[in-house]
């Protein structure tokens, strides 16, 4: 039984690692296991006060054909980055002033959090329906470990489910915690930031990686918050 569970977890971990590097993952047809590196994109600066956008690069990795899960999405990149919404005419890209981001936390929330101190540990019961299953990639199989969540200003929130995403092709130290607001209506996925650390892709660096459920309805998007250390 133990060996079966371990084998399942390893398979799940590998699947999760590939899920992080998805582009239009949900729409890829299963074929072989070819990984294609997409174009690097960087936000372009404008106006006074906007400088050095090299920190804002997010490289898209398309996994074409490998069988993957469509229920999870990975958000990753540099906190110094923020892609402009396509056109350069009105969205301005600003340089961050935070000098060292280690011990910061990036939160991805599918709604507005009105009481940060009231955040609670997430659970399958509070998770979106698409992942609140007993499937291989269900919530409990993905966020299978628990420990106290603590940030610079929040917690400790005891027994918070978390998962660790891959770095450089193997198990890493970038953790994603599952939280919820006090009403249970808003899911919050917290990624502990480590400045300029190896990402899931060998040779590429990031500040954070967050695993969160893919948009399960026509109106779900995530807002991203950085908690200052």
């Amino acid at each position, binding site marked *: 039984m133990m060996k079966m569970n371990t084998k399942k977890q390893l398979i799940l971990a590998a699947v999760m690692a590939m899920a*992080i*590097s*998805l*582009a*239009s*993952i*949900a729409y890829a047809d299963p074929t072989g296991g070819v990984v294609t590196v997409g174009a690097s*994109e960087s*936000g372009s600066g404008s106006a*006074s*006060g906007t*400088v050095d956008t090299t920190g804002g690069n*997010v490289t*898209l990795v398309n996994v074409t054909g490998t069988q993957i899960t469509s229920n999870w*999405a*990975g*958000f*990753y*990149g540099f*906190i110094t*980055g*923020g*892609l*402009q*919404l*396509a*056109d350069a*005419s*009105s*969205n*301005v*890209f*600003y*340089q*961050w*002033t*935070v000098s060292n981001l280690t011990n910061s936390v990036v939160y*991805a929330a599918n*709604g*507005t*959090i*009105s*009481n*940060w*101190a009231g955040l609670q540990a997430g659970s399958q019961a509070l998770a979106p329906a698409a992942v609140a299953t007993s499937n291989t990639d269900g919530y409990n199989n993905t966020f299978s470990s628990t420990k106290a969540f603590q940030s*610079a*200003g929040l917690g400790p929130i005891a027994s918070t489910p978390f998962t660790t995403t891959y770095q450089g092709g193997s198990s890493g130290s970038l953790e994603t915690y599952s939280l919820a607001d006090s009403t249970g209506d808003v899911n919050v996925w917290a990624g502990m930031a480590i400045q300029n650390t190896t990402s899931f892709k060998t040779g590429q660096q990031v500040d954070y990686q967050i695993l969160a459920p893919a*948009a399960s*309805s*026509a*109106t*779900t*998007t*995530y*807002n*991203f*918050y*950085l*908690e*200052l250390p």
Partner: protein
Amino acid sequence: MTTSFRKTITLFVACVLLSLCASSAHAIILANTQDWVDVYSVLLHANQNGDRALFATSESIAALAKVVPPAAQLEIYESDSQPFIKNIGGQLSSAGYDIIDEQKTESYNLDLAPDGVPYILIARENFKLAIAIGSYAVQTGSWVFIVDDENVGDVVQKIQGSPSVLAIGNFKRDILEQIDPFITETTNNNNIYLDSQEIAKRFDTLDNVVLTDGSVLESEFFTTKNPILLSGPNKIMDDTYDFLQQNNVKSVVLVGNKLSVVGETIRSRSNKEISIFVKFGQSDSSNSGKVYALNMFQMPQPTLGLTVTRAAYNPKSKQLAVYFNNIGSAGLYELTTLSINTNGEEIATASDEEVQFLGPQEVLPVVYDVTIPLDKISDDTQVEFYTSYGTEPSQLDSFLTMENRFGPPFSTKLEIEEISTEGLSLQLDDIAYYPALKRIGIELTNDGQKDTYLSAKIMRLIVSGLEEDLQKEGSIKAGETKKMYLSVELDEIDQQENEKFNVVITYGSSPTAMVKTLSLTPEFKVETSFGAGITAMVVGLTGEGSPVGAAILLVVIVAGVVFYLRKRKKKS
């Protein structure tokens, strides 16, 4: 019942249920307008009805397509006269979106206003306060009217008879006169930062607040259940920080990553007792892992900019002349404390005794009396400025910084220069308001020996019930008397309420050496005599005190007299 029939029925029922779910899902409301008041109104309306709202911020749908989910149903609210994206419905349909409704109007602020709800009134110029009231309006079901000269009549029609009309901030007199009979409550500290704090106190709890500099509209201001406080773009006002401390605020959400310097200041000053969360991004609609910048609507605020072009020390007079340059499009006030350092060692300090006003694009030399030991001055000597500035004397909400830095000080090299002020002298002969001209006339005499350049200011003049500052530059030759006119229209109540003219004239031998100051507070005076009428005609014809205008007028008068005399002669 056969198995296949059962399966068919099950499938059919499932399809019906799914279609019901899809059609009952909330649509996304999309504002397509260049007017911030429309965007504000659509956001307020949507959030009061539990709908999600987005808005166009450029002429292309490409940006919207990245964050609007492909399966979303859209209701488009478009401005009749100033949409951002032409034929947005057609473009979005072609892109595969389901447009279920399209509306067009000139004013969503009036058309979306419900009847029989509490109302909140804010002047159009006070857009920052409109942002600060957003979450309160959603929580209380209040409609916010953004009032200006054009819509005040329509607003009055809507609010009369309402048991709850809250007016926040300042209004021009002619607008205030029309809405005043219907106002049941007022919040006005003549300071938008204090006003936002008063609004915040209406909330049950202050554990969590949102902080903004009021420069953009973003959805958080309507979706949050927390109060919204105002901040400077790179400086937290002392009042605001004290409010956070006194009310034991536990967490602050800053909207937009450019406010992170404010967040770090709060974090540091509170000894990390206040948590700071910076909202900086949003996911795209296809779960590709990309994090985009927030969807933010830029508010139409004046461009404020200040720099220091030179700091020159005159060892003879023991004066430091600092040349402040207002590089923006609006007048501003500044207050400075400066430190003179050589290789890290402070060798002298100085500071303003009161705020200084600079008109748009004005270079103002401010002179400080300070003794700098000459033996400590070297090529490495720097002047460091801790300068706050803003659009109101009591609301200096920005720090002067070096380019691409986010906090003070601003530094510049110390120069040594002897600026001579010998032979420079100006006298104020007269000052009065000319209603026929809609101008204030200042008569000056240059009783010195040198031609003089000058900047004339009238400070804190009451105009339409609100205080304003006027500024104009000019020059006077040695020995000449000249009248300068500053345009302003004062109504009868303004003329009664203004008791004095606060006149400040800076002058010097060149535009970059106006280091002498003349400050006076003569009694306010209105000039309505026949002489003033003639002056009005002359000035109205060609400009201020123009000799051409005077000549034309003289010709007209002479022609009139000649015509009268010849007619009289014919009769006789």
